């Protein structure tokens, strides 16, 4: 059993810190080695995913870190072999939680998290974006840690709400956790999902929003402003908390509260350069890091070497 259980008094935070650090290091290494990657997303989301995987989510353990299976074809009546990446979260059970990744471009960060918590084999990241692999650049439902199609932004929350509704109807006690990025909330479907979640009192689901204030074209406020986000969400009937997205205790606290009928939304205020200050020189273009020169790549390689030496 590789998934640690949470004994009272155990410093889960120390473990989560290691996981967050490992996420940054693995995504940095990947970006340096592949001359490209979703690096700022690792910096902003590391603590959120670390808290989810080590503390907040109640997932079944896996026997050993899984090697990502190759792509087995798209689902269909003639393909009994298709599968989803939920196998990395252990067997489904009534009391166990579920995880939905809404912004599928964060897949690389989730893959790194799965390795750090012992759910995916360390070599799994070598399959990233390789032909015939399930470790896709934009994660799909067969990709490690994913179980629905979310690469067309805005559909993750609705699908998660449907799963939460089904679990509520069946009387299951497990919850549904959704990781969302702030930019994708521009898509109207998210707001349709929120109104349905509030209407059907889906307090068995919780949403963690990585409020890194960045999207593909640049700062969210310059592309399409959504502030005041907190007030907008609250007015849709959500139970909203704004926390420091790099503070593990603050991230975990809202999940401990007794459900009150409202869907839980945690706005995790994050820094897309957190832990890698070298990224600050790329502001405001942080969405996808590709080095402009060999010299720049070397500077990141040096940061990676320092990172590894500190460990």
């Amino acid at each position, binding site marked *: 059993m590789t998934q640690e259980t949470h004994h009272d008094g155990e410093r889960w935070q120390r473990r989560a810190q290691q996981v967050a650090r490992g996420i940054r290091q693995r995504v940095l290494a990947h970006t340096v080695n592949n001359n490209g990657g979703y690096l700022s997303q690792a910096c902003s989301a590391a603590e959120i995913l670390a808290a989810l995987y080590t503390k907040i989510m109640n997932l079944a353990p896996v026997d050993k870190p899984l090697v990502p299976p190759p792509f087995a074809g*798209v689902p269909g009546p003639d393909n009994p072999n298709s599968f989803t990446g939920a196998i990395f979260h252990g067997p489904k059970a009534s009391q166990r939680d579920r995880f939905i990744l809404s912004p599928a471009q964060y897949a690389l960060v989730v893959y790194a998290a799965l390795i750090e918590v012992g759910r995916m084999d360390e070599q799994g990241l070598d399959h990233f974006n390789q032909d015939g692999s399930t470790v896709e*650049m*934009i994660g799909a439902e067969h990709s490690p840690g994913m179980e629905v199609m*979310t*690469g067309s932004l805005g559909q993750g929350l609705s699908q998660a709400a449907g799963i939460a509704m089904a679990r509520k109807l069946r009387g299951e006690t497990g919850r549904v956790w959704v990781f969302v990025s702030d930019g994708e909330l521009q898509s109207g479907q998210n707001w349709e999902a929120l109104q349905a979640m509030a209407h059907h009192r889906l307090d068995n689901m919780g949403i963690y929003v990585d409020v890194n204030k960045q999207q593909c*074209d640049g700062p969210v406020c310059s*592309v399409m402003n959504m502030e005041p986000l907190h007030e907008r969400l609250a007015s849709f009937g959500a139970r909203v908390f704004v926390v420091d997205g790099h503070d593990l205790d603050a991230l975990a606290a809202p999940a401990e509260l007794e459900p009150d009928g409202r869907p839980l939304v945690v706005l995790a205020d994050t820094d897309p350069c957190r832990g890698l200050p070298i990224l600050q020189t790329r502001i405001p273009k942080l969405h996808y890091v590709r080095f402009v020169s060999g010299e720049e790549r070397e500077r990141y390689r040096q940061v990676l070497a320092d990172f590894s030496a500190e460990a």
Partner: protein
Amino acid sequence: MEILTRVHAKNLVQWAKDKPEVLVLSADLTSSTEIDLFRDTYPERFLSMGIAEQNMLSFAGGLAREDFFPFIHTFAVFIYRRAYDQIAMSVAYPNLPVRMFGFLPGIMTPGGATHQAIEDIAVMRALPNMTILECGDATDVESVLDVAHAVNGPVYVRILRGEIPRLFHPSEKMVLGQARKVSTGRDLTLLTSGICTEEAMRAVQVLQGRGLAIEHLHITTLKPFDDPAVMESIAQSRYGVITMENHSIIGGLGTIIAEKMAEQGLGKKLVRIGLRDTFVHGASKAYLMKEYGLDAMALIAEVERLTGETLGIAESELAEAHLTAVHSLAKAEAL
């Protein structure tokens, strides 16, 4: 073969210079759809719409009713799948001149099923008033703006970005409703569109060398489809016709030809090369073309089947395919 980079980025800026009524709308993929140069050159004519395509398409309808020409830019899949009803009622019904530029059609993106427009032609073709164009090379990308802009109504364009080959001389521009002849011959007619034209040319060179006379036509107008030269070529073909498209065989070029042949009573064999009613997954373009039978070798196999001749062509005989590196500097990310 000449390879050009960022053709649309530069061409759009030049073309729109004296057209203040042309507005460019972006859905958070500005660099990825090569409109960053337009944004920087004409910031007052660039509208950032966020990740909200449904609103963007109806918003464009409003602009077009006020005599502006909205040029929508995003990945092809996000235009028609995310905003279909909005296109139908806010744009197509009132026959408004909204120009929709869909990037990375078909298997051109490793972004997987969520990013791959595999049935866009089928869906958009079913909309009344819609015109559909597809680019296959740099000359197409350079000339498609004039073609689209001359249309009285909405236009959906499958367009190319990044590194693009030039297959046709710059003087051989795209013309609405006119196929361009790549090679001539009476044994069989080969109709290709988009990136399949370049791929087919690799095979045709070798097939011609084996003595097969192939009439290869490059199709850029998918709707309306009324080029008499295409149907005449099919009628005169000895073995029949092969269509090859970066799209499902349902509803695209292959279906269009089947409909036309049936209506005209053309009793020839038709072979449709394309995605065989399947979703696709994320992988490289070259890998997917081979896996799903969209490459030159797949075409050769179909020619052998149609003609009943075994040609024994090895892949090594084909001219080197043009491949773009995953991290080509001509594109904004790895998609």
